[in-house]
């Protein structure tokens, strides 16, 4: 005999505290159990990939800020790498180092945000989020110091970076990098050993390595599932092959592992920034390129390890000043695609925690 | 009992109880009638207080207003929308007549019989100041067997309810 209770539809979003933006989950529930999830995206669609075909290569850089607005630097970097590959532009050594520094700072900021909101979704009343925001603030101040903007940085240029950091940048980043390990230790002390967090996140939203690879999951989610894969090591770009760092790899692929992998990656980022600062070469920060760059007809794909995963930019040139085709491989969208598999059969709170652990940015999903 | 507080309290509370009881009967919506039945339970608890039965009054609120009413609301929720109205059956006229007859009979008997009751100062003397201790010692002394039986009954009802509503795991 079964219950006569009927499944009902719960609309989580588009306005909901834990969808991290305008994104809607149409959940079919039986009591508190989730029977089906329908992900409705597109509320933030701005048609960026099409718009990019109307603008010059340089004009497109600000667009990439606005896809993943929590990791603008990484997006800038990926796009510039793709165009550089297309147009065969050489990047000075100093620019590569600066790119690494800023991409890793961005990773720190983004992972702070991801872990903070994850704990928030698990129910902590904003305190861990505020703690992590404290460090993120300082990183954003560094961005502001260098390029005048905090979120939509528009800092990388084709052939280098827009500005050399000002002199006051160096003491500020030194103090931040010195402080950061103690702060991460503080988070570890506050959160990692927390019984409630373990109870909420252990064994929830498990993805095995095979499932993750089948779903073309990338980034911390893939690493949490136990696959040692990181583009910075597998296919080093910029100057990553000159730095010494390690890839944190999780054990079970649950939400807790994702949290831990992100926390560990923050430590590794600090390590990379430290090495890059110590070895920062002098020289020009940019190769001059023509205002209207006209690459030879052809196509290029460049990928970087963004905070959320493999961030790929595919650019096709027909010889004109604007890309003929432009496509972004957005890790948020692809990581989100397995939410249904992870959350069906779980309870509603578990689904929310799982969603929090996938660390989506709706601007990147919808582009 | 002629002190003005008790007299006023008695009339107010009996009015509340009987009125709420009538509204239980008259409400069209089953959930509204659950609300009114809770009100009747609370009025009844007030009447118990006027009888200086403090323990029973508080237990009444705890068990009826706190527990049984939640069970009632749960049962209403678990049944579908269609049966959330409160219709009368074919027996309604007969039922109302029997109810009226019984109420009239009891009222008549209560008012007409000269009860061998305590009055005045004897009644004041017997006002129970603390009933808990006595009830406790009686429950575990004179009435120990019924008390144990009652606990067995509760356990049986508990297990029975779970067994009835439980879904098969398989």
């Amino acid at each position, binding site marked *: 005999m079964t219950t006569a209770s009927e499944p009902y539809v719960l609309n989580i979003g588009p306005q909901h505290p834990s969808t991290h933006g305008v994104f809607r989950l149409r959940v079919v529930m039986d009591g508190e159990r989730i029977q089906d999830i329908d992900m409705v995206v597109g509320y933030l669609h701005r048609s960026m990939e099409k718009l990019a075909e109307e603008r010059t290569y340089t004009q497109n850089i600000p667009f990439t800020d606005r896809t993943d607005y929590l990791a603008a630097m990484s997006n800038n970097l990926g796009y510039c790498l793709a165009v550089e590959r297309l147009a065969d532009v050489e990047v000075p050594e100093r620019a590569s180092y600066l790119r690494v520094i800023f991409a890793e700072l961005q990773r720190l900021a983004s992972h702070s945000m991801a872990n903070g909101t994850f704990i928030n979704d698990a129910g902590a009343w904003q305190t861990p989020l505020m703690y992590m925001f404290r460090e993120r603030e300082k990183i954003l101040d560094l961005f502001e110091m260098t390029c005048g903007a905090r979120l939509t940085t528009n800092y990388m240029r084709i052939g280098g970076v827009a500005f050399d950091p000002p002199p006051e940048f160096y003491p500020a980043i030194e103090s931040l990098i010195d402080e950061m390990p103690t702060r991460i230790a503080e988070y570890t002390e506050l959160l990692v050993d927390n019984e409630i967090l373990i109870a909420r996140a252990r064994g929830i939203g498990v993805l095995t390595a095979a499932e993750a690879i089948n779903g073309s999951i990338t980034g911390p989610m893939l690493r949490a599932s136990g696959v040692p894969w990181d583009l910075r090591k597998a296919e080093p770009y910029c100057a990553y092959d000159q730095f010494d760092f390690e890839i944190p790899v999780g054990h079970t692929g649950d939400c807790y592992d994702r949290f831990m992998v992100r926390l560990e990656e923050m430590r590794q980022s600090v390590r990379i920034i430290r090495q890059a600062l110590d070895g920062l070469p002098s020289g020009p920060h940019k190769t001059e390129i023509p205002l209207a760059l006209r690459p030879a007809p052809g196509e290029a794909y460049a990928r970087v390890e963004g905070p959320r995963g493999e961030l790929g930019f595919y650019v096709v040139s027909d010889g004109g000043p604007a890309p003929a085709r432009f496509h972004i491989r957005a890790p948020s969208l692809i990581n989100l695609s397995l939410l249904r598999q992870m959350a069906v059969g779980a309870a509603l709170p578990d689904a929310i925690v799982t969603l929090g652990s996938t660390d989506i940015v709706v601007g990147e999903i919808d582009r | 009992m002629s002190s003005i507080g008790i007299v006023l309290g008695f009339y107010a509370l009996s009015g509340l109880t009987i009125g709420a009881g009538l509204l239980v009967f008259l409400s069209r919506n089953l959930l509204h009638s659950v609300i009114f039945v809770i009100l009747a339970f609370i009025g009844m608890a007030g009447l118990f207080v006027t009888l200086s039965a403090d323990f029973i009054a508080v237990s009444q609120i705890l068990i009826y207003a706190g527990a049984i009413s939640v069970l009632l609301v749960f049962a209403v929720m678990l049944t579908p929308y269609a049966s959330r109205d409160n219709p009368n059956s074919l027996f309604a006229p007969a039922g109302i007549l029997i*109810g*009226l007859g019984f109420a009239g009979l009891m009222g008549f008997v209560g008012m007409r019989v000269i*009860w061998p009751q305590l009055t005045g100062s004897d009644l004041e003397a017997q006002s*129970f100041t603390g009933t808990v201790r006595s009830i406790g010692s009686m429950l575990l002394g004179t009435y120990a067997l019924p008390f144990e039986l009652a606990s067995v009954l509760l356990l049986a009802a508990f297990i029975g309810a779970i067994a009835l509503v439980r879904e098969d795991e398989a």
Partner: protein
Amino acid sequence: MNPLVIGIGHYLAVSGAVFGIGIAIALSKRNAIAVLMGIELMLNAVNLAFLTFSRFGSAFGSEPTAPLAGHVFVVFVLTVAAAEAAAALAMAVLVYRRRETVDLDRINLMRW
């Protein structure tokens, strides 16, 4: 009867009225849950009568604690009421699951 001197009669009248309402509800409602509410009201009325006699009549017992026997009975009635409510509501839910209704007029498998 002096309306300003409350005695057994007044309480019994209230008890009778509530009991009558309970009977009327229990007999005339079609919904099983409403019937259960009627029964609970009747039990309450009985409790009131118990407590009334316990309060007003020490003539019914000789021991000093004897009047409180009424209270003890009420405790038992409360117990039974709680048990009964749980079991009856479980049955109502079960009947609903099996037959998709809690309408007592339509639960007539055992009529004849």
